């Protein structure tokens, strides 16, 4: 399902749109999607705590609750072998969605199939085929070496011994932690522990993998290592991975497809490039110009000049104006070098998040929300 986009180049970016078309053909759909989410919603009723002693005593008798709509009406399809990222501000509902997909909590409404199973029925056949890793939590035995936790998983997942040994050694080697296997988990650094968590989750060779912020709190090197590992692992095994992360580097390195979730709804579904195209109207242009410094006087008057450092000047410009402005400049100045680039992805995402939270995603859907069928 690779589609031609408007400009005629081959890209993954239109997977989402093509998939939406495919939805209209149920048979097509059944055969293809490994994760199938239809109108899934989940809300939490949280107790409204009042301040002060009197209020809290009153609260004993009459409680006030507030509904938190963590996930609202999410629909999504994921194909086998896809590496999808969930991206969204804090409290957007990413973790809740992953918990629903893992069957840890029950939804209020909606339907979901992963590999043909309804997750919250928690059949053993389903649970043997996926894994969930949560970066903020620890599932290894705290006081024992990771090797003991691995052994336990071997028994729980009934992995044959030789296969288990092979997978464990291979994973430990890839992540470079073989020498740490005998050390109690509480004595491992955060990064080392995270690698162990990943190994523990992968020992039974899950076909679907849910990773909730696997690189949280890690230094750049450890982060990079985990990215590389995940990339290599996924390329080799071709399993399906859904990842959430607040580090754009993770997503850039790993995911062809990004689903932006904000306030419990899907706000965008496509590639990172799509996001830039859709949400950022600007380009950043850097020019290198020969000649005396005086020539810059004229250029300084351009709107949105970011930086002047002769012989270089950097400015921001609307995408539609790039061609015209550049040809003007080229005809006037002795330009030695031109770089036209997108604004930093973090900046674009920040804008998307602000947009998503400002706009009323509540009831009437955003006019150009993609991916919501």
């Amino acid at each position: 399902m690779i589609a031609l986009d408007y400009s005629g180049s081959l890209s993954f970016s239109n997977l989402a749109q093509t998939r939406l078309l495919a939805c209209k053909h149920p048979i097509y759909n059944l055969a293809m999607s490994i994760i199938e989410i239809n109108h899934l919603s989940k809300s939490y009723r949280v107790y409204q705590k009042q301040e002060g002693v009197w209020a809290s005593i009153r609260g004993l008798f009459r409680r006030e609750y507030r509904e938190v709509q963590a996930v609202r009406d999410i629909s999504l399809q994921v194909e086998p072998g896809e590496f999808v990222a969930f991206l969204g501000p804090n409290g957007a509902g990413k973790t809740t969605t992953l918990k629903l997909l893992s069957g840890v909590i029950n939804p209020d409404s909606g339907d979901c199939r992963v590999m043909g199973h309804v997750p919250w029925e928690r059949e053993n056949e389903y649970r043997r085929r996926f894994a969930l890793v949560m970066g903020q939590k620890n599932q290894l035995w705290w006081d024992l070496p990771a090797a003991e936790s691995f052994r336990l998983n071997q028994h729980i997942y009934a992995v044959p011994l030789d296969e288990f040994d092979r997978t464990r050694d291979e994973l430990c080697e890839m992540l470079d932690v073989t020498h740490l296997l005998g050390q109690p988990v509480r004595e491992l650094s955060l990064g080392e522990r995270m690698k162990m968590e990943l190994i523990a989750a992968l020992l039974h060779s899950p076909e679907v993998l849910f990773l909730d912020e696997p690189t949280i709190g890690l230094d750049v090197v450890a982060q990079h290592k985990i990215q590389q590992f995940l990339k290599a692992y996924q390329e080799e095994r071709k399993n399906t991975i859904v990842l959430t992360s607040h580090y754009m580097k993770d997503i850039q390195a790993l995911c062809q497809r990004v689903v932006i979730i904000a306030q419990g709804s899907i706000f965008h579904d496509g590639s990172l490039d799509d996001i830039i195209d859709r949400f950022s109207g600007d380009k950043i242009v850097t020019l290198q110009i020969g000649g005396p410094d005086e020539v810059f006087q004229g250029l300084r008057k351009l709107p949105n000049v970011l930086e002047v450092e002769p012989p270089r000047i950097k400015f921001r410009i609307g995408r539609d104006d790039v061609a015209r402005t550049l040809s003007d400049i080229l005809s006037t100045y002795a330009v030695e070098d031109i770089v036209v680039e997108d604004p930093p992805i973090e900046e674009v995402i920040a804008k998307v998040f602000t947009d998503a939270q400002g706009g009323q995603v509540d009831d009437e859907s955003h006019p150009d929300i993609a991916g919501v069928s």
Partner: protein
Amino acid sequence: MIQPSYLNVFLTFAKNSMIRDMSFRMNFILQCISSLSWAAMNYGLFLIIYQFSDSIGRQTGWGESEFFIFLGTIWIINSLIQTFFMANATEFSEMIRTGNLDFALLKPIDTQFLISFPRVNWAQLANAFLGLAVIIFYLHQLLNDPSKKMDFSIWSVFAYVFFVFCGTVVMYSVMIILASTSIWMGRNQNLHNFWFYITNFYRYPMEIYERGIGWALWGTFTFVVPILVVSNVPARVLAQPLGGHWGLWDWTLATMSVVAAAGSLWVSRCVFRVALKSYRSASS
């Protein structure tokens, strides 16, 4: 279909707990000492009481030797519960509050099994051995007492082990039911309290309740929450307070013990399953 080996999983739990206990050796030793001294004081207290009386109640047959067999049985059941379940039930309540139950729910194995056994508190097993020693000592006394008509064979031992097992199952189920309620309460610090209240009543032969308002307790703890059956049935098999012959009442109690074990285990599974439906995890 691939099935996990429950035995292997349990053995791994037991082994891991052992490794863990051994790595905090001082704590382990102190735990053994403190629970043994509790039992010793308990024993001393009843020795004192038996200086004032030969038997609990008239014609109940609970003389000194019989009663200490009863006491040893209590220690064994308590110690089994504390070794295998107490820490786990507490941990289960905690998992509900912190959201760590998520991980148990992910595993392709019976969730109730998985949360019931992960920690084996080996130090608590000391009291079971002490109980066993006390039982053997007093049984020896009884068997050598010509005034008692004991009917003791290898079958008594099997029956005893079986009924202790049934009793442990009942106590385990009560505990899991109590712990499961934390899903609705969000937090359950009553677990230990409840446990204390309940075990307070099952620590004595049921005959002591058979008078006045004691009957209300007798009825409640025999039929509603059958904890009197838990301790009395196995103890009567060995101590034989009224001689070796089993009357109708003995058979009734024995049947109740088996029914209670099966029934309470079933109820605990139902409560557990329903409780999980309300589990809402925790926001990171």
